[in-house]
């Protein structure tokens, strides 16, 4: 389990990284960015990923903007190289983004969180990744810089399924902006073993400006479930409505089937997790 050979290049700043990406791609190589590497390196060790050139963003952590975690008015802004652990320990998130820090305990384990990055997780686009769910829940905008300049990708347009995202191979994600706070929000999940990728995970919010029901592990990409959100809009908050919402979500989805669970089981988990998450969100002060 040793990776295939590649060449290694340290980017000095974002333009440098973008330049290197283009340069190697033009030369017929398969370049790839590495930040925390917690998803990429295992795949390289199995030789399931075999980039021919690695462009290391590590040096860019010297740029405070790239690792900053800060509130900007109503938004939570996370730099492209901030780690899960830094978010977990950050004290500035405020009640509107408490769901983010609380979700961190579900992200892998401490050593993975210590090195893995928020942006890396979102770009990787795993259908159960907590950050991908949070992006949909909190209307994240992914800021990507490439040869054509900077663009802002709304979370709703980000995840194409099976690890495919809207970020192009010549782009660098420099920032993730969570534009919507939600004090009545919760994320919960089920995995047979703690710290694993979830079989199914659910993130919800109960807010005056709209309810959200987001699921992971039930489709090739994390999804919002409008049918379930509609249920929430249709009645007074409370256990009955939450159960009904869970049931509506279970009905609406068409989950995959694998060793972790059948489609029926995933539907059932979705129901349970949404109901639980809504209850938690409610208790935290979501819409009454």
């Amino acid at each position, binding site marked *: *389990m*040793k*990776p*295939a*050979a590649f060449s290694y290049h340290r980017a000095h700043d974002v333009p440098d990284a973008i330049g290197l990406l283009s340069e190697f791609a033009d030369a017929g190589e398969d370049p790839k960015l590495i930040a925390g590497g917690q998803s990429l390196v295992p795949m390289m060790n*199995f*030789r399931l990923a075999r980039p021919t050139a690695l462009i290391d963003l590590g040096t860019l952590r010297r740029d405070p903007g790239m690792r900053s975690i800060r509130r900007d008015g109503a938004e939570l802004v996370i730099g492209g190289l901030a780690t899960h652990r830094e978010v977990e320990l950050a004290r500035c998130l405020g009640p509107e983004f408490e769901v983010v820090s609380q979700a961190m305990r579900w992200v892998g384990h401490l050593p993975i969180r210590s090195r893995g990055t928020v942006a890396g997780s979102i770009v990787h686009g795993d259908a159960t990744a907590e950050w991908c769910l949070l992006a949909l829940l909190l209307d994240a905008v992914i800021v990507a810089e490439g040869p054509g300049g900077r663009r802002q990708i709304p979370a709703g347009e980000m995840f194409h399924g099976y690890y495919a995202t809207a970020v192009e191979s010549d782009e660098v994600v420099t920032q993730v902006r969570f534009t919507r706070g939600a004090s009545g929000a919760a994320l919960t999940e*089920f995995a*047979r*073993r*703690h*710290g*694993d*990728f979830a079989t199914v995970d659910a993130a919800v919010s109960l807010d005056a400006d709209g309810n959200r029901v987001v699921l992971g592990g039930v489709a090739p990409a994390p999804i919002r479930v409008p049918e379930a959100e509609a249920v929430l809009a249709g009645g007074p908050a409370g256990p009955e409505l939450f159960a009904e919402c869970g049931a509506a979500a279970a009905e609406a989805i068409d989950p995959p089937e694998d*060793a972790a*669970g*059948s489609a029926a*089981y995933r539907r*059932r*988990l979705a129901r*349970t*997790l949404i*109901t*639980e998450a809504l209850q938690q969100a409610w208790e935290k002060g979501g819409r009454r």
Partner: protein
Amino acid sequence: MTGPRVDGPRGRWVGASVPRREDPRLLTGRGRFVDDIRMHGMLHAGFVRATVAHGRLVGVDLSAVREIGGVVAAYTADDLDLGDIVALLDRPPEEFVPTAMPVLARDKVRFVGEPVAIVIGCDPYVVEDGVEAAVVDYEPLDAVVSEETAFAQQAPLVHEEAPGNVLLDVSMFDTPGVDEAFRAAAGDGCVIDLVSRSGRQNALPLETRGVIASWDDRDDQLLVQTCSQVPHQVRTLLARSLGMQERSVRVTVPDMGGGFGQKCVVGREEIAVAAAARRLDRPVKWIEDRREALTAAFLAREQRYRTRAAFDAEGRITAVDADIVCDMGAYSCYPFTAGIEPLMASAEMPGVYKVPAYRVRARAMTTNKAPTAPYRGVSRPQYVMAMERVMDRAARELGLDPVEIRRRNLITEFPYTGINNVTYDPGTYRETLDLAEGVLRDEGWCHLRDGATEQGRHIGIGYSCFSERTGYGSEAFAKRKMQVVPGFDISEIRMDTSGSVVVTSGTMNHGQSHETTLAQIVADRLGLDPGKVKLRQGDTERIAYGWGTFASRSATIGGSAVSVAADRLAEVVRTIGAYLLETRPDNVRLDGAGGVEQVDDPARRLSFEDIADVAYLRSHLLPKGSEPALSATASFDVAGDGTFSNATHAVVVEADPGTGRIRILRYACVEDCGVVINPKVVDGQCRGGIAQGIAGALFEEITYAENGEPSAASFIDYLVPTAAEIPDISVEHLETPSTLTENGAKGVGEGGTIGAPAAVLNAINDALRHTGVSLESTPVHPQSVLAALDSAAQEASNAS
């Protein structure tokens, strides 16, 4: 091991939680595992492995491999021309079909991951480049992956010489009265008929397998440094396969990162690496990577039992009739053969219960899966699970308490010769059950369980009672008709001029703390500080022959051999001491402080240093005719059927009605492994064993697709439980000293793993008692639990 002397209940040192001798080096990163060893000019090996489960080898083209810079050599089976690995039983052809495991696949591959070629290069990265470059052509054959496919008419044959894909088919017992008992039970009593299954597991030592082989001209010898539980068996088979004198092979074993049975058989990779080193005249190292370890190392456990049991109206078992199929995978392992699991199950299944009539048929099935080795417990987790489920099911049918039905059936008088013709030495079968039940009752768990349903909670209690034969001597193994019969152990002990002793053992520590526990034994026997005792293991040059560590044999048999050797050395020391003190030998005794003293005048004393000084450096002072060597050798073998440790496990679980997750609320183990040499070590063996049993009950499994593709090649898919899944476990000890071993110890290596699946499965089924569903396969997937709970809830709501 300095500090205050702790007096254990059985001696100065035996019985005390003496700190481990192994710890300082392991805690500072200064242990020496195989992969930590580097030799001058060392090369690295990797294996080209089969990508199809069953297929004819049409061509193996290694030309591209050899062109890669840094690759030194690449060999196929034809290049190396090695003897096959053949493990035999003394059984007639209708019972046992011998098969051969080639070191590298020759005409055919039989499982995904089977080694086809070996690649040697300058570093592991280059070697992996080389392995990738190999081109292997297969003519695929249909894969055999289940009982259904193996036993079907016209089934493809894994081994042409094994019709029906059966390697062993033995009906070991068919005692009188079985059919009568079932007829009677059908009228007045009950008949339980259940099919139970256990999934295919990996013993999963955290250190994967690995070996370094090098040729030494001066010693005229091949040095093989490997992580094996059985260094002498590696030597024997290596010498035979390579066509060498056995003295030309030396096998040494450094620190080992676990084994659990996976390393108690000889790996074909060990032989291929040795052959490559011999041919290249360079040291060659191979370290198995985790993908190989999960797919191509020896696996374990996959078995199916159909158990029928008859009970009378009072809940007394009157007969057991079992049909057992063990999926041994593609090959028979050396030295145990594919018969090990079915023979173990057949011989031992009645276990702790008084079973008056017994019929059993057990088969070893060969399939296109990675072959198996005897993993911690060896069939006992499975037959205990079958018997314990039978007990709970019968209790339910008859309206009895699960503990009560066990009480009525447990063996309570010893020695007891069972229907299986095995004589059980004294144990505490009943007492451990009573104590375990008391723990749950006193802590309020029974109350909680009974009241749970009303609160909408699903809480269950499960027990398992079992004994485990730990002292398998050669007589006991011979009953299995193995052609290679393990049993004895040899120990040699020497004292040096500083009064320290070095003791050797044929056992092989791989985490069990032998350096500490065997030293405790010797320290007591010689009356000296264990800090002055150094254990040497894992070197075939140090003793004539050894059987390594498996089957919980180290404390029982290995511990006995070192005891006898130490006693013999004590005798030598005493004799010389008496001569020097100018008194009769029977007037001299060990003084417990590293010397001898005169019985009638303890002030007259000689230290071991004094005696050794004379023996070695001034031997002219020795009595005429006596030898200057302060050394002794002893062998030990357990007579008869050997000794049995026993335990009861009691478990409380809760099933989550939203996810089906099983949470273990309480785990209590009450065990009796005879004399406890080191309580902390015994606790550790119990807890670690139970953790592995829980792993099998709830998490770990490798399944195979129809085409023979294994489901798990990484720790993402193979669910080794973590600290978040394994609960704290209480361990209580009873001590029934064995009269068959020198120290009264009974062995404790496997018990935890044996008892856990049964107890957990019983607890789960108890939690599901209202559902009408019974789960009889491990691992229990939460979705099965949830399906049971949901269907019951559905029925309840329909009814209301």
